[in-house]
Structures are given as structure tokens and as C-alpha cells.
């Protein structure tokens, strides 16, 4: 837990540093008609850096207590995060509906070991229902791929 706390504080400190640098580039003083663009971000960055430094110091002084995430906890988390990332990646090439169908199907098969007919049914039905609700009823377009092109959407 201590290492994670320290790392997060340091990362946030560095991010605040990046903000500080850009604020200085934009100018933090008084422009022709009021504070310059960098004024507000500058003070945010200053407060952020000081606070993160104190948090890091607190974390460093404290004795290590518990682990941030155990191996047993990390595995299910990654089993959710990994496929989700794959889904988003696939979406860029085949569109949301096809990617969602494949993702739901594979997930049900891999994690849930559901019967093949249920897998097939839901991995077709859920994207189709989503399609009807969003594209037809509410006219909100989603990313589409070759299949939708071929079907004429």
C-alpha cells in the first residue's frame, strides 16, 4: 500500500509539474484585460505540487501496511480490464456492434462457461437490441464497421 501511495503521489506531482510548465508558457500575470490564461492553472499546479509532496512525505514516513493489491485480487481485475481494452481496440476496426457481440460471446464462454446456444443467442441479441434503441429510436450513431456498411447503414 505504501509503495502505491508513494508512486501515485509522485506521478500526480509530476503531472502538476507539467501543468506548471505550460502555465508559465502561457503567462501567469496580468494581461491587457485581466489575468492571463496561465494564471488559474499556475496556482492549481502550485497547490497540487505542494499537497502531493506532503502526501508523499506522509506515505514515506508511514510503516508499510497491507498490500495495494494481492495476486489473487489482481487476477479477476485484469480479467475484466484486459477484455474491455480489447473491446475498445476492436471497436475502431469493426464498429461497436460487432465488437460488442464478439466480446460478450467470448466473455460468456471463457469466464462463465455458458452453453453455446445461450452464448450465440445473447451475443447476437444484445447488439441488435442496442442497435434498435440507439440508431433507430434515439438517432444516436455508434461507431460502425464493414458489416454495417455491407448491410447498408
Amino acid at each position, binding site marked *: 500500500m505504501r509503495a*502505491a*501511495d508513494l508512486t*501515485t503521489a509522485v506521478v*500526480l506531482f509530476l*503531472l*502538476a509539474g*507539467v*501543468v506548471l510548465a*505550460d502555465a508559465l508558457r*502561457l503567462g501567469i500575470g*496580468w*494581461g491587457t484585460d*485581466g*489575468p*492571463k490564461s496561465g*494564471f*488559474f*492553472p499556475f496556482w*492549481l499546479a502550485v*497547490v*497540487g505540487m505542494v*499537497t*502531493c509532496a*506532503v*502526501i508523499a512525505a*506522509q506515505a514515506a514516513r508511514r510503516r508499510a501496511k497491507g498490500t*495495494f*493489491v494481492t495476486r489473487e*485480487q489482481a487476477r*479477476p*481485475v485484469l*480479467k*475484466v*480490464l484486459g*477484455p*474491455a*481494452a480489447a*473491446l*475498445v481496440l476492436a*471497436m475502431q476496426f469493426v464498429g*461497436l456492434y460487432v465488437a*460488442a457481440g464478439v*466480446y*460478450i460471446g467470448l*466473455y*460468456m464462454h*471463457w*469466464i*462463465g462457461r*455458458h452453453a453455446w446456444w445461450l452464448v450465440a443467442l*445473447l451475443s447476437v441479441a*444484445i447488439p441488435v437490441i*442496442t442497435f434498435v434503441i*440507439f440508431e433507430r429510436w*434515439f*438517432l*444516436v*450513431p*455508434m*461507431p460502425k464497421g464493414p458489416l454495417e456498411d455491407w448491410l447498408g447503414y
Partner: protein
Amino acid sequence: MGIEDLLLGFQVAVTPHNIVVAILGVGLGTIIGVLPGLGGANGVAILLPLTFTMPPTSAIILLTSIYWGALFGGAITSILFNIPGEPWSVATTFDGYPLAQQGQGGQALTAAFTSSFVGAFFSIVLITFFAAPLAEIALKFGPPDFFAIQLLTFSSFVGLGGGNPLKSLVSIVFGFMLASVGLDIVTGQLRLTFGVTDLMKGFDFIVAVIGLFGIGEILLSVEEGLRFQGARTGMKLSVVFDTWKILPRYWRTFVRGSFIGFWMGFKPGGATPASFMSYAFAKRFSRNPERFGKGELEGVVAPETAAHAAGVAAMLPMITLGIPGSPTAAVMLGGLIIWGLQPGPMLFVEQREFVWGLIASMYTGNIIGVAMVLAFVPFFAAILRIPFAILTPVIVVVCAVGAYAVHNAMIDIWYMLLFGVVGYVFKKLDYPLAPLVLALVLGDLAENALRQSLIMSQGSLEIFFTRPIAAVITGLAILFFALPVITPWWRSRRAGVAPPSA
């Protein structure tokens, strides 16, 4: 003013169309509240794009109904599954889950829904009477006063939020930083984009909410294994009526919870401390405090009354001042801006039908809500019995759809994943997420109020102390910011110099 306005509101809210909208909203909201990974804030965020084509009044009724439904739904998961869907449902699990395990789930649920309703109703009545006068006062506010209120908003997270005040401060600061990415509308300069085109649009708070509260929550909840487990319940009408016969016994707890909830709730981040405070008070004043935590009905009544009163009270600053009291209210505020309404006191002048329709719909929405959840608890509880491997991918897809729909941009879905990981890490390390979201929503408003104030004063910060309203509020804000330093000092002083006699 007053009754006539409310009647006007009911004429807007009680049309067949808006009643159907409210029923749909409560139903959807309860499902959202029951589903792990979906809660009030991101449920509303996901559905926000669907309201762009609706009339604003129906849209806000839909979103608020979802909010009420989600509040009720949160009680179902807390009691039957020991999973608090929202931080303010944590206290409900203390006695709700033991009751469910003892086969008293129906009783606990009835008590929770009834308490929620009582708490909410109390707050709605207060909103009805206080909203218009408050808005009238707020009409006289200038930029320095508004900035002072923003300061107060965020100081209360630091001073009263509990947890590590420094981490609350970090969350606030990074929320504001995220808000400042992109085009600076005052000077026309690009900020924090570093030449990257995708950063020019900035970060949308809806995407952040979906990631932080949706994906982050799922990641956190699966740590204990890829499944959800719960107690079974039989919900019969006789159980409801039997519980209603017992409940009047706890009228003191109802009154106390409502007041605590309203008082804490109209300040941001108030619902969670309100629920715990109400629980603690109920336990202290109870004749049998030893039964708390083991399945005492009063231990369900107390936090639920306060949490729901606070959840409703969070709407008061949103409609009168344009400053949301909770992440969900923040998302609704974003909705107002998208629908072309200017949040803040001018709403009461320019959009009377909208405001009073909204207030009237709080009455109808909560009545519909309590009736629906009491009637359909078995159905809502059955949702959590859908196998994990089906529910999780569907929720992830729904989140992705919601994130994409905001701007039709693929990059937003990547941001959603990123915010999911950030949410997971922040939650584990006790960085609060609510102040980050609020800062992201209010970023531009706060910065503009600050800049305009400084322009008025030629760059002097004195303006926040010389105007009477701003001075009082700024003073209070500084006190709240200093509380984490003052409190330990005060305690040690009292303990050292004069031992407390009480």
C-alpha cells in the same frame, strides 16, 4: 410565489407523457442502482445523450427519476447483497444485511424504502419553500460572491469530507486541471494541449463520470472474485403492512435523520457523512444500542432517511445557485447547459415552468418510486442473479456506448478506460472521486468567476473580503479549509489544559 408556482409545476409534471417518463425513469434508475458498476451519477451520464432531443422539462424529469430510482436501488443491493452501490449506502448494510440473513429482508427493505421516502419528502417540502427565496437572494450575487460559494463548496469536501483532507484537495485540484485542458474561451489560447489535436476538445465530465464510477467500480468489486452473491427475500404485501405498523415507533429517528440529511445534503459531499451521523445518533439514543450492527430495524431507518434527504437536498443549490451538491446533480447541471438552459438563479425568472415542473416532479417521482420498488423488489433483486459473465460485459458495453454518444468520438471510450483505472487506484488509496468530478464540471464557471472578480478589483484579492456576502462565505470557506488543522489542535488543547468534564 409559493403555492401557485407549485400548482403550475404540477400542471407540467402531471401530464400523461411526463408521468410515463417518470415511471420509465424510476424503473431504469432502480435497475441502474441495483447493477454493480452503474450508479446514479454514471447512469444519468450514460442516458444524458438520449435526452438531447427531448423537451428540457421531460428530460430533467427523466434524469431526476433515474436518480430517485438509483437511490432506491442502492438500498436493495445493500440489504440483500451487502454491496453498497453508493458510499452513502454503506451504513445501510450494517443492519440491513444481518436482517436479510435472518430472513427479515422484506422487513428491512420496506423500512429502507419508507425511510427513503420520508427523508426525500421532507427535503422536497423544504425545497418548495426555500428555493424561490434563495434564488431571489442569489440574483443579487456578483462574480465574487459566486466564486466565494465555489470556494465554500470545495472547502466543505476538505473540512467535512472525512478521510485525508490533503487527498481531497488533490482530487479538487486535478479536477480543475482537467477542466482547464483545451481552449481558453476568454483569451482564445490553447491550454495544456501540447500540440495534440485530441486534447483540444478537453475532457468531458460525462466520460470521466462513466469511467471513474462505472468501470472503476466494476474493477473494485471483482477483486473478491468474479461473481455476485446475495440473500433471498420473500416480499409479501402483509410484510409491508406489518412493517408499517412498527415504523411509527421510530418517529424520532425519522425526524432526526431528515434534519441531518437536509442540513448536510445541501452542502456537497454531504450524503455520506449524513447517513453515518444519523446512524450514530440513532445508536446513541437507542434503548438497546447493543443490537445495532446485528439486525436492528432502526439501524436501517436512520441512514436511509438521512441519505435520501441529503440526496434530494443536493438539488437545491443546483437549481438556485447553479452549483451542484452531488456528482449526480453535477451531471444534471451539465445536462441543463446542453439543453440550452443557464443554470442558476435566473432559471426562476426565465424558466418558471421548467423549475416548478422539476420541483413538482420530485413529489410525483418519489411517490411513483416508492410504490414501484415495493411492488417489484423480487424483479429488481433477480437482476443481480443474472450470471456475472453475462452482466459484466453488458455493463462494459453500455458504458462504452454512453461515453461514445457524448461527442461521437472514439477517443472518449479510451478516456473512459483510463478514468476507470484512475478511479480504481484512487478508490483504493482513498482519494475521493466526488470532488474531482465536481471540480471538472465547475472548472470553467469557477475560473470565470475568479477572473471577472479580479478584473472588477484590478487584480486585488481584497474583493473577496470587502463585499459583505462574499466576505462571510469566504470566511466560512477558509474556516472549513483550516478545520483539519484546527480540530486536532483544539482537541489536544482541551485534553491538555482542561480535561472535559462531560
